[in-house]
């Protein structure tokens, strides 16, 4: 008995304790919520049966209800547009900034670090600020666009069905660009400088050096970053809550926000859980790619 106890601070037991408690906690909360989510998606759940564990199972009814909902496919389509455009925008701007700040100059690391304030701010505050920047009548974005002659009339970003989703995408690109830039900078810094020197001696121009050295050397970083970006984009909730609330008429709604609306606005917890299961499946597939692309680092 004494031996068993002493191993807790001086042996295997110590390690098991340190790693065991957090993992048990995580599995108890996140893991069981995940399982419970799947179970709920096959049950009939309403506000009255919320407090009971034993609810009637309804088979695939919830899935059929979700997938035949006339709003479902437009919302899934929005999710796809939101993810692709956010990812693309964050990555392109992030890569451009990373390349720029990679040209070491005095103060470059400090300036680069400042960009990350977009990432540490509360999402709701970011949403509030962009809400005002993108306002139709008095928004400063419209003022800029009008003064350089891109548009003639102000765009009602948040209330027009054509632009509502874009106002969230633009905000999300701003939000995520800095994170992309920082991680891409790490990848750029890891490329040996003599590769570029050798290529210059061989007469390769800047474009060719980028294409034949930078891009191939960055492949693992880019792969990890895109899957991480996909995961983060599918987590984005605060910006929708702050800017458009999914409207007008679901034109800017995405699946992760819809799932929450179904549960907490319509109190249809079963369908909320069903949409969640569908989306979480997608996130987990992305996560497997992410873990695979960083596997050598994880082991090393």
């Amino acid at each position, binding site marked *: 008995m004494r031996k068993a106890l002493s191993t807790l601070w*001086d042996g295997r037991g110590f390690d098991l304790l340190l790693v065991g*408690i957090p993992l048990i906690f*995580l599995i108890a909360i996140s893991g069981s919520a995940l399982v419970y989510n799947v179970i709920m998606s096959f049950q009939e759940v309403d506000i009255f049966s919320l407090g009971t564990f034993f609810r009637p199972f309804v088979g695939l009814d919830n899935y059929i209800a979700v997938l035949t909902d006339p709003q479902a496919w437009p919302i899934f389509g929005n999710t796809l547009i939101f993810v692709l455009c956010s990812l693309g925008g964050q990555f392109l701007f992030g890569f451009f900034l990373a390349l720029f700040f990679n040209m070491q100059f005095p103060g470059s690391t400090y300036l680069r*670090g400042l960009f990350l304030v*977009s990432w540490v701010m509360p999402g709701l505050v970011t949403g509030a600020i962009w809400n*005002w920047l993108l306002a139709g009548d008095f928004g400063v974005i419209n*003022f800029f666009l009008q003064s350089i002659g891109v548009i003639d009339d102000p765009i009602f970003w948040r209330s027009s069905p054509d632009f509502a989703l874009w106002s969230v995408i633009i905000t999300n690109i701003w939000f995520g660009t800095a994170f992309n830039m920082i991680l891409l900078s*790490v990848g750029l810094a890891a490329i040996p400088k003599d590769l570029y020197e050798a290529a210059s001696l061989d007469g390769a121009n800047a474009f060719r050096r980028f294409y034949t050295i930078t891009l191939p050397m960055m492949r693992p970083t880019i792969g990890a970053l895109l899957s991480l970006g996909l995961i983060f984009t599918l987590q984005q909730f605060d910006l929708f809550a702050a800017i458009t609330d999914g409207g007008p008429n679901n034109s800017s709604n995405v699946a992760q926000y819809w799932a929450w609306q179904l549960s907490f606005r319509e109190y249809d917890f079963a369908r909320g859980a069903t949409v969640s299961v569908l989306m979480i499946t997608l996130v987990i597939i992305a996560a497997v790619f992410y873990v695979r692309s960083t596997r050598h680092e994880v082991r090393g």
Partner: protein
Amino acid sequence: MTPKTRNTLLIACGLVLAAIYLFPLYWMYVTALKTSTAMFAAPPSFVPPNPQWDVFAGVWVERHMATYLKNSLIIASCAVLFIATLGSGCAYVLARYRSVWVDVGLFLVLMLQVLPASLMVTPIFVGFSQIGLLDYPRIAVIVAITAKAMPFFVVLVRATFMNVPAELEEAALVDGNSRFGAFIHIVLPLARNGILVSALLIFMQAFGEFVYSKSLIQDVELQPASVGLSTFMGPNSVDWNRIMAYASIYVTPILAAFVLLQRKIVSGLTSGALK
């Protein structure tokens, strides 16, 4: 082009890029200081004509920000405390060994990191209500945030522990320390900076947390500042200078902490996030 002109040119470009990127923040502060008429002036003024400094005090009192910020602080501090206590040990063990089980543990942690809060909130709400945890909504939110953010903390801090030489720990063991003693007296102090920086990063995220608080806390007295901001921002709000004042009060401490410590935060983030 001499190196000097090149540097000057690059610094200028860098400053311009930063100015464009950070313009939204500038606009938040400028709008907060504007009067209602100045706010809707066309063309907009980029320096407020007669700044309204008392707007901050007004919004502070009127929107009950003291209560909201106190709740945010309580939630974020408790969550960080739990995460740092539980997560540091987990990260240490996952950094120290290489085996199939460590790989399994890491995989599990990474998988739990990716679950979106907005999709997990339905089962968490229903589950917590069944075990009665919703009667203590702040604890419920703290538990939910802890489960959500701990994996990220583990991933970041694990990178820190990997940089602590195992030889130092072995030497301490040879000198007669127990594993527990070596961990407390040798390993933890050496990893302190990394742990603090990661904890600060988690704190910043928890301080702005929204979806769990909004869904699990019904009582206005217990809600954090993010929920308070969302109720302030109705669909037809015109109070933009006051909303921006609220936002300024809310984020300025975070921004100040970030700017002061940004070197450490950025290096902590880059060493861990891609691993």
